[in-house]
């Protein structure tokens, strides 16, 4: 994993510097600035030094936990990341939980009742689910459910009526801890639409994967044996088939984490959800070198760690490769 991480850091570092346009010129805006002032600012940010020196300085700082300072806000990148990350995690966790809790049972039902209209409807819906552009889907949901019906709030994480200092950064937990009546309900209602939008694709993929994995397993000999032994169908499905069917599904879930983070970018933009997706996109546009570098590194690190966990989990539950 270490060589990959170093490779990632080199990519993150060089990519941002390959971007045309200059954060200093962007700061100057239409007014522009004199050549000496430009040089002065170059020196201030360390841009005038050769690239490998800049990279070396960056890596040494990194090892001490310093991810650099945002050119735009002048605040440490790590601090900004840690403040915004819980919002993205909360949304992503809710989305993946919904995707699994709804997707797996749907996939199982579809597999068990293969060929029925239930199967066709579920699979059809899943197909539509991952065929649509989620930013469009999100906008339509807002207009319909928040605008026309007024059932859900329009944006943000919690109603402005509630004000409490963040403890964990997770609005659901913090609202419970605050003890304010109705805060939890408000936090929950704000999560509904963004979660639905973000969960759509993983849900569809997981449902389909579960179904095909189940079908494969249901046709296996040992299932037929269990059935012929007279075991009740539910036990057959629940115990034997499902456990084995879930193995490839776990891998799929792991892969969906990357999809979730990508989807978070679009979802956060539309719902004004204060997470890292929006933060990263804005920083690319503003050429905030430190933030893009640090952000890419942190996100890549998280994805790598999640993949590692998934691999380990997979190894644990798949008896065939346990040893």
């Amino acid at each position, binding site marked *: 994993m270490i*060589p*990959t991480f170093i*490779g*990632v850091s080199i*990519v993150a570092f060089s*990519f*941002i510097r*390959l*971007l*045309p346009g200059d954060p200093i010129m962007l700061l100057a805006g239409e007014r522009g600035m004199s050549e000496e002032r430009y040089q002065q600012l170059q020196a201030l940010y360390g841009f005038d030094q050769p690239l490998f020196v800049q990279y070396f300085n960056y890596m040494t700082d990194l090892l001490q936990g310093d991810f650099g300072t945002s050119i735009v806000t002048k605040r440490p990148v790590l601090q900004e990341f840690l403040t915004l990350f819980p919002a993205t995690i909360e949304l992503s966790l809710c989305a993946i939980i919904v995707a699994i809790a709804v997707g797996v049972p749907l996939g199982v039902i579809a597999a068990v009742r*293969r060929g029925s209209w239930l199967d066709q409807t579920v699979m*059809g819906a899943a*197909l*539509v689910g*991952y*065929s*649509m*552009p989620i*930013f*469009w*889907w999100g*906008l*339509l949901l807002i*207009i319909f459910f928040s*605008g026309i019906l007024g059932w859900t709030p329009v944006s943000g994480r919690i109603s402005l009526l509630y004000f409490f200092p963040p403890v964990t950064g997770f609005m659901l937990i913090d609202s419970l801890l605050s003890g304010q009546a109705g805060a939890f309900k408000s936090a929950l209602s704000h999560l509904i639409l963004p979660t639905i939008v973000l969960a759509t694709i993983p849900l569809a993929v997981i449902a389909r994967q579960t*179904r*095909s994995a189940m*079908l*494969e397993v249901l*046709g296996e000999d040992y299932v037929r044996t269990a059935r012929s032994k007279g075991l009740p169908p539910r036990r057959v499905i629940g115990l034997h088939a499902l456990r084995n069917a879930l193995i490839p599904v776990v891998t799929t879930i792991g892969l969906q984490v*990357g*999809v979730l*983070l*990508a*989807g978070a*970018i*679009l979802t956060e*933009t539309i719902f004004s959800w204060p997470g890292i997706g929006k933060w*990263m*996109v804005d920083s*690319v*546009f503003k050429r905030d070198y430190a933030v*893009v570098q640090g952000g*890419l590194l942190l*996100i*890549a690190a998280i*994805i*790598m760690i999640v*993949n590692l966990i998934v691999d380990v989990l997979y190894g644990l539950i798949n008896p065939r490769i346990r040893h």
Partner: protein
Amino acid sequence: MTSTNTKDPNAAVGLEGGTVIAVTRRARLAEFWYYFSQNRGAVIGLYVFLAIVAIALLAPLIAPHSPSLQNRGFFLLPPVWQEGGNWSFLLGTDAVGRDVLSRLIYGARFSLFIGVVVVSVAVSVGILVGLIAGYFRGAVDTVIMRVMDIILAFPSLLLALVLVAILGPGLVNAMIAIALVQQPHYVRLTRAAVMSEKGRDYVTAARVAGAGNIRLMFKTILPNCTAPLIVQAALSFSTAILDAAALGFLGMGAQPPTPEWGTMLAEAREFILRAWWVVTFPGLAILITVLAINLMGDGLRDALDPKLKRS
């Protein structure tokens, strides 16, 4: 991985067997079509897709207006069935008076173009790299897989966004970025297939018969790995269209006034409450196209993969 029950030994070894191979191919095609047509959804998908291709090709003939013609008196007209609509602009007009229907029709060209280019580039480069990695193993393999791991460590949209920002916003650069981001899928797929085929008897036989590395890679092993690649290609096609639309939505894809569906959505964002048709129709167009391709992809997978033929 192998999709046929019987393999003509001539075909497998890559010797030109003339009519023998043709028959086998025709038989394979017929068998493929039989299984494919079993899946009603896939067939519908195929017809819809063909219709879209036809629309794209015939665009200059069927579009009522030019997609870039600004009709100065007709800004933001609603679709014909709403009050204020106009029969010459069936689906309404956009902010500079351009006909939405015509732009959708021409937009099909761009979406298909994006799909074809991205898939071709991703497939050809990905297969090549995967073949090399799987065939030669060793240090080459390790380096290639590391690079793929690095690409996979970033969320695809973010990586594509940064790449496009580096290359400059535009359709071509967006396609390059998306193709690059899809590399790991093809490389891994090809590599895994190659590694598992490499040990088979027919490959050893071919090598013994004197076939060189290149011939072995391309003519012997590759043809037998095509099934999952085809399925992946179908999936990539639809992913490419969605990713290009997302990049367009963020302002980094095709630039206005190109009538690409994602770009049309980006331009229309500010009209979402006032002129719903400028937002809804491009999104629907994307949805229908991608749905059709995914339906086909399902059918392809079912038809090509023997283990799942039952579903």
